[in-house]
């Protein structure tokens, strides 16, 4: 079961930004969902290989050739804030 602190910690990990008043409803709902997962503990899975991909596909390789790709303009078209050929962001480094 989740505590309020758990919810605050998880929301920081995924930068989801939830309001103070929403912490309790999320705590209750997520705890309830987590409870549904307990059923899996019935199964002994120690010797079972995990499935990462339903068709067991391998890694796909290709030749390192130059192809046409998106133009700079197309890639920057949806930029929220643009500075020349760059995406502009808030300061990353903190004092």
């Amino acid at each position, binding site marked *: 079961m989740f505590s309020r602190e*758990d*919810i605050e910690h*998880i*929301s920081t*990990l*995924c*930068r*989801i*930004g*939830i*309001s103070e008043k929403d912490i309790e409803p*999320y705590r209750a*709902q*997520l705890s*309830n*969902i*987590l409870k*549904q*997962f307990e*059923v*899996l503990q*019935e*199964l002994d*899975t120690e010797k*079972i*290989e*995990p*499935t*990462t*991909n*339903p*068709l067991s*596909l391998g*890694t*796909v390789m*290709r030749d390192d050739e130059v192809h046409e790709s*998106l133009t700079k303009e*197309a*890639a920057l*078209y*949806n*930029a*929220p*804030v643009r500075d020349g050929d760059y*995406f502009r*962001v*808030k*300061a*990353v480094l*903190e004092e």
Partner: protein
Amino acid sequence: MELNELSIQSANELLVKREISSTELTKACLDRIEEIDGDLKAFVSVTNEKALMQALMVDEQKSFENEALAGIPMQLKDLICTKGVKTTCSSRMLEDFIPPYNATVTDRLFERGAILLGKGNMDEFAMGSSTENSAFFTTRNPWNLECVPGGSSGGSAAAVSAREAFYSLGSDTGGSIRQPASLCGVVALKPTYGLVSRYGLIAFASSLDQIGPLTRDVKDAAIVMNGIAGYDPKDSTSINLISPDYTAGLEKGLQGLKFGVPKEYFAEGTEPGVRKALDAAIKVLEELGADLEECSLPSTKYALACYYIIAPSECSANLARYDGVKYGHSQRLAENMWESMELTRKEGFGPEVKRRIMLGTYALSSGYYDAYYLKAQRVRTIIRSEMNDAFQKYDALITPTSPTIAFNVGAKTADPIQMYLSDICTIPANISGIPSMSVPCGFDSGLPIGMQIMGPVLSEAKLLNIAFSYEQATDWHKIGPSL
């Protein structure tokens, strides 16, 4: 019969004879949308001018002979990228996003002369079973406007059922094509994982997502599959095989086929009306010469928990890209980059998306990875092998698509788990990577019921053959909503 009520095949026959034009078909669909979509709300956006322009060009330049999709108006779920046309995922996060490229399926359909009418409403980022998680509005069920159309591809199912579009492409991660098709009375096919390219499909859970058609009858589903299936080097999960002609084996009949009816799919929660319709459908399949018997897939009861660990985990990773830097919503009224990112995601995502990102982040976080994510992946192996074993004995499995008919708007929004249970019959196919169809098989209280047909990997042609045989022996597909 109005032009927008034709099947793809019959519209094509008239186009070939030049008795009608694509422009007329397109106008008929746009008129229908104009007439009813204010109430139905199946479209997030309608691309009138582009559609008419495309139709005009197709009429002038394209031969309709052997081009079954040329000139036929369709809709795409609003998470399939369309160059120059907004693709929103029904989210505030992508409300103004205009993709700089087409998804491979979009390109393939355009190359074949398909006409895009607009984009289909959905649950935000395909997370939901009713379209009530759309950030914009809830799509209504054409059979009863008080009810949901199912989801997440609810706009697709409603548009096809209400004869606004000839077909739509949706995406299916845990039932998002099949469940709404069942609730709206249309045909749906979720192909084998990797059969249809996902390049340009906005990702939700990458080991589960697959694109597929929603149509008014089975032959149309086969025609659309011919247009979209096949290898794409731009999708590294794409299967490198040449696809068959899916329309070729429809009329093979059911003699000699053996179907299993897994009892776990009729567990508590299955409505009596659904049970009754399935019993009747099973009789029809028997009369057509198939051999049916009850069977058991005991791991089915673990599928929901397995899915609700794996899908949110993958979603938390996939949706990490929405940081307000490169595209999408961006809130800059913040002190620094971290705060900006947090506010962007707070404002951009709705509650269900936030729930799943948090759940997935937790399941992947240090100390819990083995207990949740890895455990679920191991359980996935068990469910998958059990399914594969069943196909050693049976050509296909027959189940309900959804345990219930369409429910009222608002009936399940308070409790996420009630909503998750809507996908209890459809999730195992995604977990196993196998193809699965839904075909209309009856009504209860005036609302449609769907039969699910699951088959082994790459058995799409066989599933279409089974669905076609059943459809031709029944009249369900001939009945449309009175809307």
